[in-house]
């Protein structure tokens, strides 16, 4: 709604968007300027912006147009202008699915990802992985491995996430990077740790024994990254459900204890994830369920709308499975009926309809 209002206002002010009337063919013709030496970085950056804008508006480029534009863009590597170079990386990522012979920038990008300019390294990795296929990957494998374990966090993160994307098309090559992903998992940086776990799990996920080993080890070690802990909770729950389904129900599963310990984590995100997990696990007993619900109850009073929304949405789900467990929270839910956030208010009302007695509904 609000974005619609803004658009209208801009119209009234008289076309404040300078990109409003761009024409694809004329913008593509402007890319001829990329061939000039020396490069006019300011003008070329502006042209690159127009191209990105057009593509993001849904303009379709044909393979030939995209290829010509892509090759024109490669000429810009002769300039050392930092802002323009970063625009070129974005352009490479946008055009690489449509253009042909995109491997032409492989050398330029590997040079940037291993070079001295830190501002280039992470985006160069992401761009490189968008142009690399299974066969080319072997040529840059050495650099990818180095970047995964790089001390610079954005570089390491960029390499990990790119590897994850590559795993869909080049799974066999990426599988060989498990040692590097393992090393990233020990990073002090919360993002690197999270992405490290993401990649390592992806590599191992077909091997149940390896996953169980990994999770058992990590639950004993205090992971710094709340994102990584949330992910670990999800993997742990998956294992618990699988074991229970297989009939190996072990009442005192260490993984179950781990999820329970997460209810006392200092990060709200982790606490919510653990409470959510308890609500959804089949083996949760009424006592554990009530602990989880009381945490959600606490979140209903949070000043953060996202937290209230998450809590009441989960409550709504609990109310369908175990209405009595939610009864205790009816007062808190009633408080949310008039919440300034409409989604929160709606969820609170529907939850109350499931749990509330006549008296509360009347109120």
């Amino acid at each position, binding site marked *: 709604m609000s974005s619609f209002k803004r658009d209208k206002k801009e119209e009234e002010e008289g076309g404040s968007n300078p990109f409003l009337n761009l024409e694809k063919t004329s913008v593509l013709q402007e890319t001829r300027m990329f*061939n000039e030496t020396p490069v006019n970085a300011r003008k070329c950056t502006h042209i690159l912006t127009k191209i990105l804008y057009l593509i993001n508006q849904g303009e379709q480029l044909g393979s030939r147009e995209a290829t010509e534009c892509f090759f024109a863009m490669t000429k810009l590597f002769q300039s050392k202008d930092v802002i323009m170079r970063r625009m070129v990386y974005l352009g490479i990522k946008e055009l690489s699915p449509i253009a042909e012979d995109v491997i032409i920038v492989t050398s330029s990008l590997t040079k940037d990802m291993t070079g001295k300019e830190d501002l280039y390294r992470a985006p160069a990795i992401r761009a490189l992985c968008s142009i690399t296929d299974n066969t080319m990957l072997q*040529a840059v494998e050495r650099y990818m491995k180095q970047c995964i374990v790089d001390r610079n966090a954005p570089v390491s993160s960029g390499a990990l996430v790119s590897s994850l994307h590559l795993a869909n098309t080049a799974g066999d090559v990426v599988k060989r990077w498990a040692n590097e992903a393992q090393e990233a998992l020990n990073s002090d940086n919360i993002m690197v740790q999270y992405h490290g776990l993401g990649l390592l799990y992806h590599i191992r996920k077909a091997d149940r024994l390896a996953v169980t080993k990994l999770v058992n080890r990590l639950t004993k070690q205090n992971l710094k990254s709340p994102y990584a802990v949330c992910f670990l909770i999800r993997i742990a729950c998956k294992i618990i459900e699988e074991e229970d389904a297989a009939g190996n129900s072990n009442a005192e599963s260490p993984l179950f204890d781990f999820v329970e310990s997460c209810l006392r984590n200092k990060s709200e995100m982790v606490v919510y994830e653990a409470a959510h997990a308890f609500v959804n696990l089949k083996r949760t007993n009424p006592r554990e369920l009530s602990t989880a619900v009381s945490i959600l109850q606490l979140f209903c009073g949070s000043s953060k709308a996202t937290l209230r929304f998450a809590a009441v949405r989960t409550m709504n789900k609990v109310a369908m499975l175990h209405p009595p467990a939610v009864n205790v929270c009816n007062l808190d839910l009633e408080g949310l009926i008039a919440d300034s956030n409409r989604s929160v208010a709606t969820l609170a009302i529907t939850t109350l309809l499931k749990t509330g007695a006549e008296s509360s509904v009347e109120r």
Partner: protein
Amino acid sequence: GDNDGAFIPEHKLVMVGLDNAGKTTILYQFLMNEVVHTSPTIGSNVEEIVWKNIHFLVWDLGGQQSLRAAWSTYYTNTEFIIMVIDSTDRERLAVTREELYKMLQHEDLTKASLLVYANKQDLKESMSAAEISKQLDLTSIKKHQWHIQSCCALTGEGLYQGLEWIAQRIKKK
């Protein structure tokens, strides 16, 4: 900044040749006066080299067969083509010859001059510059200025004589 060097003319050089001829090694020998460890160039390297107050913009284009078709997109405004030859690679000299004549016919290169580096002269089994010149039939080239220079990219021997020939040509213009 944006306008730095805007009034110092840059001269565009395009360096081509088959894979493993030594193009990237030559580029970094010029740039840093040292031998860098190279791996096959997939695509292109571009570096600016300043020598005797002349700015050279050197495009080093990967030599693998799959990439050769893309060379021509880099020809616009090119003043000099440097063709690098592995002087020990007798078997593929015919391929080089074919690529060379195809290139010289390109409309964007009608005014370009040609420097041929007969590289890897340090190796015993290498052909001499004269022999390569004969095999490539260089004397038949009438529409382009050309020069052949024997060299060794690892030691740098002969490289600057080649660049000197280019510098002389620039001054005459």
